[in-house]
């Protein structure tokens, strides 16, 4: 990679790491959500670096625009403020287990990645948007239709779950 690309990668990586720490560590769930948003934006920046701008826009649209707003509404149910549900410090055993859970895949996978790197291009491939649309409509039309069915069913299921009958 060239120097500007490395700088940009470093910046996005920093955003992701700081966002992850906020999302996992903050006692206030609102701050955790802000950390999640920062992480998602960092990943969107990495998509831009990977020469996939469409993925970056989808990331911002779907994750930041839809999922995070949804989670924010659900936060109104939790006591999300700094002395709310997550405020009392987690038991030491639990924090230890959390660190262990984070370290385990790192300890298993990172050495494999470092020792046996896959042959990698220096310049990412470029995919025109029209090509993506064509593949979605021709080769992968079944997954495309299935995912819309899954979304429809999950939305209907969500409405059904929280439906309140009037006669109760």
């Amino acid at each position, binding site marked *: *990679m060239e120097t500007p690309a490395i700088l940009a*990668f470093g910046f*996005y*990586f920093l955003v*992701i790491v700081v966002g*992850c*720490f906020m*999302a*996992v560590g903050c006692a206030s*769930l609102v701050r955790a959500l802000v950390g*999640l948003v920062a*992480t998602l934006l960092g990943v969107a920046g*990495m*998509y831009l670096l*990977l*020469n*996939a701008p*469409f*993925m970056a826009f*989808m*990331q911002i649209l*779907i*994750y930041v625009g839809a*999922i995070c707003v*949804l*989670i924010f509404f*659900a*936060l109104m*149910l939790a006591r999300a403020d700094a002395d709310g*549900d997550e405020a009392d410090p*987690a038991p030491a055993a*639990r924090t230890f*287990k*959390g*660190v262990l*859970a984070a*370290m385990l*895949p*790192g300890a298993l*996978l990172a050495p494999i*990645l*470092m020792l046996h*790197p*896959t*042959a*990698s*291009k*220096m310049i*990412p*491939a*470029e*995919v025109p948007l029209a090509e993506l649309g064509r*593949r979605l409509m021709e080769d992968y039309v079944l997954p495309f239709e299935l995912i819309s069915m899954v*979304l429809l069913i*999950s*939305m209907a*299921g*969500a*409405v059904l*779950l929280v439906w309140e009958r009037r006669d109760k």
Partner: protein
Amino acid sequence: MKPLVLYQLASLVLLGAGLAGLVKRRTLVGMLIAVELMLNGAGLSIVAATQLTGADAALGQLATLLVMGLAAAEATVALAAIVVVFRRFGTTRTDALATLREQQ
């Protein structure tokens, strides 16, 4: 280091943070945030692996779009479940959700 390894390490960070959050958080919403972190790491890993090798790059992007769609569906259902749990138990703390256990 090769570029692909750098991106894969970034997605590994996301996976680790997600797992840690899943274990450490004590509310359902906090756990959902951790799951979203992990799904995002998966997406980044897929796109990096196909953009930077000879693999079919369009297929990788479409696969990640699929992951995003599934994440949206999962978030919808999970949040509806959280609403139901809140109505029933009055809280979304995970240690309160134990109806099989003898009630104190």
